[in-house]
């Protein structure tokens, strides 16, 4: 059994070449084409049981045409409409402004990145997912009799993808993914606590990943809230990787985009080669990470991906560029020179490439601490495992004001109990430039908007304000 039909990759590439032929017949100067075809199975879990099993397949192509520095884009499923799509893209290109020196990249040698496709996932069928869901439901029940999986599911997918352009770039490949997510709720005499945790991988996950136990654990931990004095106070906060990553993803990656930096839309504008974070902290983007969800040999324009340092020992040392953004900002005089950093991303075949990060990691030269050591250093403050409203954070300023019901009070380095609810506010850029201590357990966190993040628990000693309800 194989989730991906035989010859899926070859068929996709063959169809992409038909679109390329349409570009050539229309006399397009330069073109690039991306194509995807995915298949998968999924299960929904609600109210402690499997409620739905599903499957299906989808795919499509995006075609970008470039003429004298202008570009147009169109997308299609049925390649019999290729000529029409190319003509539409050309019509749009002719209404678009020309960008001096904007040309599509030519072929450059790219490093092969492994770990993208797991035969064990390709062999999974709906019955395997049903067994995994059973195992998860049993594990939750075993961990705490009162715990119920009120939402979530299990899913696997396999995707064939291809990229080719008029300048000789041709790449195709297969990738797989396996994901689970569980919302665990405990009803304790009408007082509910809950926690959502998930995990995903390019390789087959174990039947019951650790995130299941974490979800139960946090639903249990946040029961029976303690009374604390109300009123907002500045306090050190230990944010778990799961609690920190939503805020990080909204605020930090956009600040490192070249276009935003030179357009003065980033809080780090004008700070290239200056300290922007605590001196021990570094942020890298590893586009070549084996088995990454956003890594690979090439970016969405065909430029080889790379492992690059963005913040090194607290200093902003690099910014992210796609070919088009770089050419545009140079042409408009906002920066003297800029080149692609292999950071073009397409969210799907429906949209043309833009700039984004791949696989961000944050590290500290001071080393890392166990959770217990972080608690000891925290001394008097809070642990937060999830926030509501991270998407309302302001990426241009770094300011945020969110709410949490997944918060524990810490006194003298010991957890003394949960709070019912609290506000958390501050400026993430400023908090990261203060005293920051990292944990030793780095976990991958997904983000629709900014690739993957590999973050440990993060202790922010300064710059945050906690407002218990």
């Amino acid at each position, binding site marked *: 059994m194989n989730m991906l039909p035989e010859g899926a990759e070859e068929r996709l590439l063959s169809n992409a070449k038909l679109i390329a032929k349409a570009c050539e017949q229309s006399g397009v100067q330069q073109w690039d084409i991306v194509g995807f075809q995915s298949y998968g199975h999924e299960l929904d879990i609600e109210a402690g049981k499997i*409620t739905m099993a599903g499957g299906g397949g989808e795919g499509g192509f995006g075609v970008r045409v470039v003429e004298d520095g202008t570009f147009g884009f169109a997308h299609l499923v049925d390649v019999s409409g290729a000529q029409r799509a190319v003509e539409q893209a050309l019509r749009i290109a002719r*209404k*678009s402004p020309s960008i001096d020196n904007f040309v599509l990249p030519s072929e450059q040698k790219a490093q092969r990145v492994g770990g993208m496709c797991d035969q064990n996932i390709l062999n999974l069928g709906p019955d395997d997912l049903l067994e995994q869901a059973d195992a998860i439901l049993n594990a939750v029940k075993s961990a705490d009799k009162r715990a119920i999986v009120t939402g979530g599911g299990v899913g696997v997918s396999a995707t064939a993808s291809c990229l080719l352009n008029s300048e000789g770039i041709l790449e195709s490949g297969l990738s797989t993914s396996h994901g689970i997510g569980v919302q665990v709720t405990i009803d304790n005499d009408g007082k509910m606590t809950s926690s959502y945790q998930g995990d995903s991988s390019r390789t087959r996950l174990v039947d019951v990943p650790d995130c299941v136990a974490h979800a139960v654990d946090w639903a249990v931990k946040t029961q029976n809230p303690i009374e604390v004095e109300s009123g907002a106070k500045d306090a050190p906060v230990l944010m778990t990787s799961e609690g920190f990553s939503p805020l990080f993803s909204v605020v930090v990656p956009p600040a490192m985009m070249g276009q935003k930096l030179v357009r003065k839309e980033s809080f780090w504008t004008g700070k290239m080669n200056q300290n922007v974070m605590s001196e021990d902290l570094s942020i890298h983007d590893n586009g070549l990470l084996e088995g990454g969800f956003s890594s690979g040999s090439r970016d969405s324009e065909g430029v080889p991906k790379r492992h690059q340092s963005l913040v090194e020992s607290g200093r902003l040392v690099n910014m992210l560029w796609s070919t088009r953004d770089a050419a545009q900002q140079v042409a408009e005089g906002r920066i003297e020179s800029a080149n692609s950093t292999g950071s073009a991303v397409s969210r799907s075949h429906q949209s043309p490439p833009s700039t984004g990060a791949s696989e961000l990691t944050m590290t500290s030269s001071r080393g890392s601490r166990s959770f217990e050591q972080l608690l000891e250093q925290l001394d008097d403050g809070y642990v937060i495992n999830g926030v509501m409203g991270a998407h309302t954070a*302001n990426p241009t300023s770094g300011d945020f004001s969110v709410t949490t019901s997944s918060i524990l009070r810490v006194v003298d380095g010991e957890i003394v109990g949960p709070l019912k609810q609290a*506000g958390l506010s501050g400026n993430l850029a400023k908090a990261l430039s203060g005293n920051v201590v990292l944990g030793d357990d780095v976990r991958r966190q997904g983000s629709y908007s900014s690739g993957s993040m590999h973050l440990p628990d993060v202790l922010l000693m300064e710059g945050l304000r906690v407002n218990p309800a």
Partner: protein
Amino acid sequence: MFLWATMVIAANQGEAHKPSSGRYLDQEKVRKALDSATTHGASYAEVRLVSFTQSSVAMRDGILERAIPGQELGLTLRILADGAWGVHSTTDIASLPDQIESTTRLAKAVASRRADGEKPIGLAEVPIFEDEQHWNSKLDVRNTELDTKMDLMNDFYRGASQHKHVVSVTTGWSDEHIHTELMTSEGMDRTWSFQRSLIHGMVTARDEGEVVSYRTRAGGQGGLELIKGVDLLELGEQAQTAALRLLKAERAPSGKMPLIADQDLTGVYIHEALGHPCEADLVAAGDSCLDGKLGQKIGNELVTVVDDPTLMGGYGAYPIDDEGVNTREKVLIKNGVLTEYLNHRETAHHFGLEPNGGARAQDGLHHPLVRMSNTMIQGGTHSDLDELMEDVEYGIYACGTRGGQVDTGRGSFQFAAQEAWLIEDGELTRPLKDVSVSGMTLEILKNVDGLTKEAELATPGFCGKGQTVPVGDGGPVMRIREALVG
């Protein structure tokens, strides 16, 4: 969360791919497929096809960044067998007959895992229709040229730019014509269509190290006439003024205090705090703080809340729900008493209630969930903002929304304002920024103690619940006696 759960697109604009019959589905073949599902043991089967003809445009500082026309087409086969669901979603319409047996088998495999005593899934009965309903726009948005869209977007740009502190103005356009066909094993055969049009803009301003941005949107259910009816120059000017004001604004104080919310923020508040916990699929899943509270008083008598997909022009309007059920206004709270959940056929059966047209799917590749449409608090007795502020010694007046979120099980929620003012001794004094408000649904509904008379739908928005759907929210200007700010 799953990779294939996105749309598939055809590049042709307009209805070039639409057959001359006006239908994508071959009715005879689909009827045979549905009959075959019954033969294989399905108690219910449906095929729902959705075609989105859409376009989006992005401009930055008056210059075209990208324009993307497209047509999306997706189909979902949903089969109920032995009291469990099997689903297959695809863009390959022709493959439908091949999926009937395997999808029925999938449903039965799920059903076989049901524990003893666990209730099988059933569907509440609904009237069966064979008809078409088309909400025709005054100006069909599919006929709008790119130049027209750019001219309108540039009106916003002209209003929003022209100030030394404004560093960029981005404008966006999106329109869609939604065509749905639904056929079921019960004999339902309905086709409906409508349009949505939206324009949005963001002004970013900078003064030395301070960078702020302000977003705004206009539009709703309808065609080009909706956008033409907006004074976009004025909308741009207002956005610029707000962004410049934010540059000077102070951080908001934190703590419990009176809060007055404008119509926009009132809408987000009621959407997050009450609307989501009223969704009966969450109630049935044990993930709502309103479980078991139908008929109970949960809010101040002032509070009456409706959800109404028939409110033409609202961004959440639709003529028929995605299970073919006719839409109607739902009164969720009447004078503080919880009177109705939002239901689809499955939850209506579960709770022994009437389906009320609350089933919505993001597109043809997703199955329907219980969703909101246009959700509003109805007006109260106060004449205006000034009257609401009269009694407030120290509080916040918050306007516009940057979004919100809710934990329906705990009943806790959060929403953020775009801008705000401090109220001191009944007067607006200083502008504030980064105001967020949080609370517990069952506490804060009781704390609503003032509403102005006029209620209106505010800015169009989007709601995420695994699937994203357009929604309308609104209400009057609302005062909450005590809310947690910051």
